[in-house]
């Protein structure tokens, strides 16, 4: 009896609460902290802008908002902000679809056949460490600075996660699941349909997810080098016109779009694989 009381004592012990701890408790509320954080961030930003720490190259948050509103209404290089965004998204979508259509089958066949794997993997490993952006020059040389070269670069960026995840998805299926379906009487075709594909699907989907965000990053890089429209173009234009508010405005839209994309994909994932347990 005594022993047990002893073991529990330090856990049960609670310091008496002093009045200021109630105030402290308010500051331990996450949402209060979030609000403080955002307010601090904006004030410091404003302060830095007003004090001209970076000279004229740091606009105030208000100026960025004004610029954003302006770009929504008044066309830049003949197109409003949403049209520019649509151009970037269109490139991403086209390249992304092509990358998935090529990358997933390559990855799958590598996972299924050790022979295809032995042939493709060394070539793939050779190209993998080169960042997609390093292909820009070659792409421009080959296809000019038109749409084709941009799509090409985005495909290069987006295809890698598709291949890797499809390959690993097939390879890392729990072998006991195969034992299980064979014991239930499944033949080779049923093994693939009922086990391999559904078991590898979450990994493949994760690869597609990564590849979409890679595509979004790469489209900007592609548009930085010679483009007439798109979000990357807005940023470059801001740089050439020495208008940092335009740059930051563009970055805000880019970040927001990226955020929306990942939100949409997460929703989609919950819908297409409801069995996947959430880690968090």
């Amino acid at each position: 009896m005594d022993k047990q009381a002893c073991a529990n004592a330090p856990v049960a012990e609670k310091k008496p609460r002093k009045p200021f701890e109630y105030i402290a408790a308010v500051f331990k509320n996450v949402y209060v902290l979030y609000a403080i954080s955002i307010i601090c961030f904006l004030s410091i930003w404003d302060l830095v802008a007003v004090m001209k720490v970076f000279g004229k190259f740091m606009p105030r948050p208000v100026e960025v908002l004004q610029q954003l509103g302006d770009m929504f209404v008044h066309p830049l290089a003949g197109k409003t902000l949403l049209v520019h965004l649509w151009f970037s998204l269109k490139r991403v979508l086209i390249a992304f679809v092509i990358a998935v259509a090529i990358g997933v089958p390559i990855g799958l066949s590598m996972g299924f056949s050790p022979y295809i794997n032995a042939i493709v993997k060394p070539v793939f490993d050779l190209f993998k460490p080169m960042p997609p952006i390093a292909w820009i020059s070659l792409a421009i040389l080959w296809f000019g600075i038109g749409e084709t070269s941009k799509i090409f670069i985005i495909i290069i960026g987006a295809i890698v996660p598709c291949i890797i995840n499809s390959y690993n998805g097939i390879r890392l299926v729990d072998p006991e699941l195969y034992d299980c379906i064979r014991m239930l009487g499944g033949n080779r075709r049923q093994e693939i349909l009922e086990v391999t594909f559904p078991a590898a699907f979450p990994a493949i989907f994760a690869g597609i997810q990564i590849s979409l965000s890679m595509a979004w990053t790469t489209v900007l890089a592609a548009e930085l080098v010679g483009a007439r429209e798109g979000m990357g173009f807005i940023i470059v234009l801001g740089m050439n016109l020495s208008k940092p508010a335009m740059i930051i405005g563009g970055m805000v839209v880019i970040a927001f779009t990226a955020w929306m994309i990942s939100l949409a994909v997460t929703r989609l994932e919950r819908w297409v694989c409801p069995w996947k347990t959430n880690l968090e």
Partner: protein
Amino acid sequence: MSDKPSSGNSKVLKILPYLSLLTVLAVWELIVDTGLVPNTLLATPAQVLKLFIYKLNHADPDGAVLIVHVLTSVGEALTGYILALLIGIPLGLLMGWFVVAEGLVRPIFEMIRPIPPVAWIPLAIFWFGIGLTGKAFIIWASGIVPCVINSFVGVRMTNPVYIRMARTYGASDWEIFRKICIPSALPMVFGGLQVALAASWTALVAAELIAADAGLGFLITMGRRLLMPDMIVLGMIMVGLTGVAIGIIIDRVEKRLVAGMRR
């Protein structure tokens, strides 16, 4: 202990990768040599090798010998990368354990995180110029994200049993953080190192493509301006090789550190 017969013939599987690489090189050489693809668009492997040897001790036509380009890029990348580690890891660890740190930093982090590093390039040039500082900033901005995330998740995944045990023994929050959360987060933190490196290296190439006077990205851009496909390909290969080399070195350092900590 699988009992299934290993699928495929192991001898063939050992030779195939080399055959495959040789075939790729041969086809590459042939399509250019036979004029199927004009030499102005693609250099042959032999040409690239020749330029590589030439660039070892010649500064022309782009203004610097190869090793200078490599060292410039590596220097920029490591500066930004190390700064990202020094700031990102402690930040992530603190955010993982202290509610106040998370509450204050998370919204800002979540706002900045979705911005691709490439988008920072113009601002970085405005603020810090096209020299080392500007590049280091871009690399820092892209390298810090995985550092923070991995350290944060690492601390969050600490086995709660250890924390409860420490509390039972009367450890303070700070002591628990130092003696339990940090050690148990280390594997995740180390996992973040490689991810951050890959992100940094990609960002560097992007930064050098836009504005630079030396470095591997600059070499690639010059290859395009001078219409020298062999220089473009050489630049790309060097980017790939150097990236892999840094990765291996960091892997070694990481293993050394882990071994040191076990002792």
